[in-house]
């Protein structure tokens, strides 16, 4: 149901029946390793290209999530998935393998929550009984596409982020036990004129702030409603900017509640500069770490604000600035 200007409240409370997170070796060394279902030791996952490796990550994430829900892939009506590769090949090729009716989405790194919001909407509107939402990214595959070859020796600035190698998936159903998707806020594209692809945090922060404010305005609640408000992949730099921007707008979120998936996934001594990024960042942290914590009873209400930078390698070369978006999804126990 439409709430306010740009939000949906899911009155039937679609349930996340199961979720999964599959990651690469570097993420396996990070702080959240225990929350991941599969940790691969090989960045290539035994494939002959990084693109195929990313596809395998997503396939595994979907398969594991379906297995954990004790279902068969035939029971799932729709797959909604997105990734960062050109023409979202990881998602589409995964859909080819799984043979589940498929809708591909592109919201850059916000695809994870875009997918979850749409999945919940499908269930809430009665368009489906079971939907699986997935998202993936692969460090080397996206470096190759968006920046330089992985082994190229260019010094990255302190604002640069590290794309997460990982995929997450969640099976959403109309009834059952588990965390419930209660509402979502669809963000609008915000462009503050930043054109440096090594400074995604600063580019995306205003989009996150816009969506957060819209969410609380539309539902007429305040931040105390949630135990955690986590942005997708702003990293250290973007998180700081977003926090200060919210304060400047007279909107205060307590420091201990406001965090960022890109700051959680890696440990402090890993050389990821400003933190993690990519679809896989918010997907693995939400579907692995946060849902686990909710099931353990540590958290009751969380708001995930997945942020995405909607640039392309061509738009960047043509000196276009980076349009950004953020989608918020509220999950409650």
């Amino acid at each position, binding site marked *: 149901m439409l709430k306010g200007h740009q939000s949906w409240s899911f009155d039937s409370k679609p349930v996340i029946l199961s979720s999964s997170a599959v990651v690469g070796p570097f993420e396996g060394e990070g702080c959240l390793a225990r929350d991941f279902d599969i940790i691969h030791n090989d960045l290539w996952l035994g494939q002959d290209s990084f693109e195929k490796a990313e596809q395998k990550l997503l396939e595994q994430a979907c398969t594991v999530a379906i297995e954990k829900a004790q279902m068969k892939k035939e029971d799932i009506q729709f797959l909604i998935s997105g990734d960062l590769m050109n023409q979202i090949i990881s998602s589409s090729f995964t859909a080819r393998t799984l043979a589940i009716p498929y809708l591909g989405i592109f919201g850059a790194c916000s695809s994870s929550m875009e997918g979850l919001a749409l999945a919940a909407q499908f269930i809430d509107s009665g368009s489906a009984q079971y939907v699986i939402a997935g998202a993936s990214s692969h460090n080397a595959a996206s470096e*190759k596409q968006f920046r330089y070859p992985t*082994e*190229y*020796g260019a010094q990255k600035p302190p604002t640069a982020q590290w794309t997460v190698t990982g995929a997450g998936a969640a099976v959403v159903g109309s009834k059952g036990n588990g965390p419930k998707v209660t509402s979502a806020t669809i963000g609008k594209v915000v462009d503050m004129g930043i054109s440096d692809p090594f400074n995604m945090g*600063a580019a995306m922060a205003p989009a996150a702030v816009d969506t957060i404010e819209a969410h609380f305005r539309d539902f007429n609640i305040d931040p105390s409603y949630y135990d955690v408000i986590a942005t997708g992949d702003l990293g250290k730099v973007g998180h*700081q900017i977003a926090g*200060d921007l919210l304060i*400047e707008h007279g909107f205060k979120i307590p420091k201990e509640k406001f965090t960022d998936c890109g700051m959680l996934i890696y440990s402090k001594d890993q050389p990821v500069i400003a933190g993690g990024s990519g679809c896989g960042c918010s997907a693995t942290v939400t579907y692995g770490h946060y849902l686990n914590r909710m099931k353990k009873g540590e958290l009751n209400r969380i708001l995930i604000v997945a942020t995405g930078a909607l640039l392309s390698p061509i738009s960047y070369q043509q*000196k276009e600035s980076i349009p950004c978006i953020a989608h918020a999804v509220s999950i409650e126990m």
Partner: protein
Amino acid sequence: MSNKKNKKLTTTQLKYQEFAKEREPKRSIVKNCIKAFLVGGTICTFGQFLQWMFMTYFDFDKVTASNPTVAVLIMIASLLTGLGVYDHIAQFAGGGTIIPVTGFANTMTAAAIEHKSEGYVLGVGGNMFKIAGPVITYGVFSAFIIALIKMTITWLGGM
């Protein structure tokens, strides 16, 4: 950022960029320069050592020794790139590993490795010069212009 580009931005955008800039960690130019000098200098000293070696133990003079010297440096840089070490050194060294011939070798090797999955012709062949290409294009072009200038001066009796 140029003024021309700034004109296209609205005041809100400009205000935000200033706001964001205050919160972005700065790259220390002095520290980076020192690191680049030390690492770059080490590479060049090693090159000097190679040249001396080729002149002392092999049959090369100062001019002809430059070819095997560069070849050895390129091979080492390519090997380090292939082993996945070069980019880590470069993150520390910055310009120190880009400027010497080793940086050039790294651009080509890195691109070649990266695009091997698209095949040897379209992948490796087509992308090997992806980063090195502009350097060669404008290097050759500017050499041509300089040659023209020199010829003109010589023709006018200047040299």
